[in-house]
């Protein structure tokens, strides 16, 4: 298991705006290695640089200094840029703004059309991808007829069709209702487990982050925490100082601990919290 993405001392600024603004330094030295098949969440509040980091991971933006190496290829290598974008797919927040076609299956085929995949193979890959996200029966629908969660799954199918090794999802559930969020999260987990696709999930939702293998917390263009969710969320004070929340169960346990109750610090989901509370009452 090698690293799919290697980021070394990455700096990035957005250029100065024309009306005299200063260049904005968004990333100030980021080091990150993502292993093949990992399911990793990136947390951070608005302006922490997490979306910029995502765009640097598939060559939409190129580093100012430092290196981003994806599957052995430097993202600044312009000759291999399309090859690289096939290997690292990207799903964005607003499902409406990433669906190109007026028919679901044609949208899923968009990337394959661009890559010049022959018809028979394209047909097969489109059908497989739609089945993988449970949207096959909607293949002839118009995206306008779908719910947010369904549209987002179509967008994911469009990426899976490229057969990427890694998918970066930039707040894919931020605009969805709870039902849509669940659907999308299930699909993402399934992709990770069944197809071994590396997932980089940028999110605002702590409960989503708690389901990942690893959580990276960003603040002001730097990585401040990088560990398994359990350990990251046990640093409640630090996480809160950055302006983020911890999962509700963790929050409850933390408050109880502060109030002097004997409850473990490393609780990240409801079940663990319930168990700990039951134990506490039994004493």
């Amino acid at each position: 298991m090698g690293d799919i993405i290697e980021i070394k001392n990455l700096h990035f600024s957005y250029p100065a705006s024309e009306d005299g603004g200063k260049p904005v330094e968004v990333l100030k030295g980021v080091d990150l290695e993502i292993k093949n098949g990992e399911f990793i969440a990136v947390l951070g509040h608005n302006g922490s640089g997490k979306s910029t980091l995502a765009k640097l991971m598939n060559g939409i933006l190129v580093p100012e200094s430092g290196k981003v190496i994806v599957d052995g290829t430097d993202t600044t290598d312009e000759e291999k840029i399309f090859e690289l974008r096939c290997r690292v797919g990207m799903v964005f927040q607003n499902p409406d703004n990433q669906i190109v076609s007026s028919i679901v299956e044609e949208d899923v085929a968009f990337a394959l059309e661009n890559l010049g995949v022959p018809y028979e193979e394209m047909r097969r890959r489109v059908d497989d991808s739609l089945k993988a996200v449970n949207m096959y029966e909607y293949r002839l629908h118009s995206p306008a007829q779908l719910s947010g969660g369904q549209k987002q799954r179509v967008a994911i199918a469009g990426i899976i069709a490229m057969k990427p090794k890694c998918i970066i999802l930039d707040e894919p559930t931020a605009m969805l209702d709870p039902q849509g969020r669940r659907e999308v999260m299930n699909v993402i987990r399934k992709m990770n487990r069944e197809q071994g696709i590396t997932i980089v999930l940028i999110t605002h939702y702590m409960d989503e982050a708690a389901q990942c293998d690893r959580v990276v917390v960003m603040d002001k263009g730097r990585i401040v925490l990088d560990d398994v969710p359990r350990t990251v969320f046990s640093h409640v004070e630090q996480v809160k100082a950055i302006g983020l929340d911890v999962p509700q169960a963790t929050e409850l346990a933390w408050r109880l601990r502060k109030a002097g109750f004997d409850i473990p610090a490393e609780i990240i989901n409801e079940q663990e919290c319930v168990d700990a509370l039951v134990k506490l009452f039994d004493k």
Partner: protein
Amino acid sequence: MLRDITIGQFFPGNSLIHRLDPRFKIVITFIYILMLFTGSSILCLAIGAVYTVVAVLLSHIPAKMFVKSVKPLMPFLILTAVINIFFLDGGDVYLKWHFIKITSEGVSVSVFMIIRIVLLISGSSLLTYTTSPITLTDAIERLLAPLKKIKVPVHELAMMMSIALRFIPTLIEETDKIISAQKARGAEIDSGNFMSRAKNMIAILVPLFVSSFRRADELATAMECRCYRGGEGRTRLRQLKSESRDYIALAVTLIFYVSVITVNFLFVSKS
């Protein structure tokens, strides 16, 4: 109110009309329009009407959709018809009152015009109802492909058109939302005279434009992420294959067209 616009709306289906090669459908629609404009007698229009009704029935699209597509133009049609009835002179006089004169010529021209336009709209709606906008654009792109040789950016134009079509429902929804939001903040959008209404439109158009630019930017990034690099070397999921039914449909249309021309000719030579 905004949801009633049906132009460019596609109804998925699997009827004979749906399955026709879109390139043929475009050519056929052109012949159909020519046919309607060539026909100069009621008989010609009757032939056109038979053709339209058969096509509509074959498409399995509910007739009310066609009524809906004609509806927005009805006030304009009726106004033109009324003007024609009152001001066209010729033939028998049915009614005469001061300067108003209703003649057989006026009535027949009005009826003729209404039928012609209704057929025209229904027939061309049939094209967009049974062909997905992207297939349509695809077909146009292929029909116009020879123009690439003289440096017409056919692929780029087709791509722009298909994206525009894709975003029509999205932007309609967005406009509805903006209107509600502005109303909630006390904007008077439906009241006042023409000038103040036009002014109020700014409150809708500015946010709409701002959000459209943002959408365009995000869409461009998403397309880049999916390896879009122009028309070079693209393959298609939608394969356009002309089959015997396409040629038959074209032949049938041509037969109708020829019969309209024949009827025209007979009619003109008699009178």
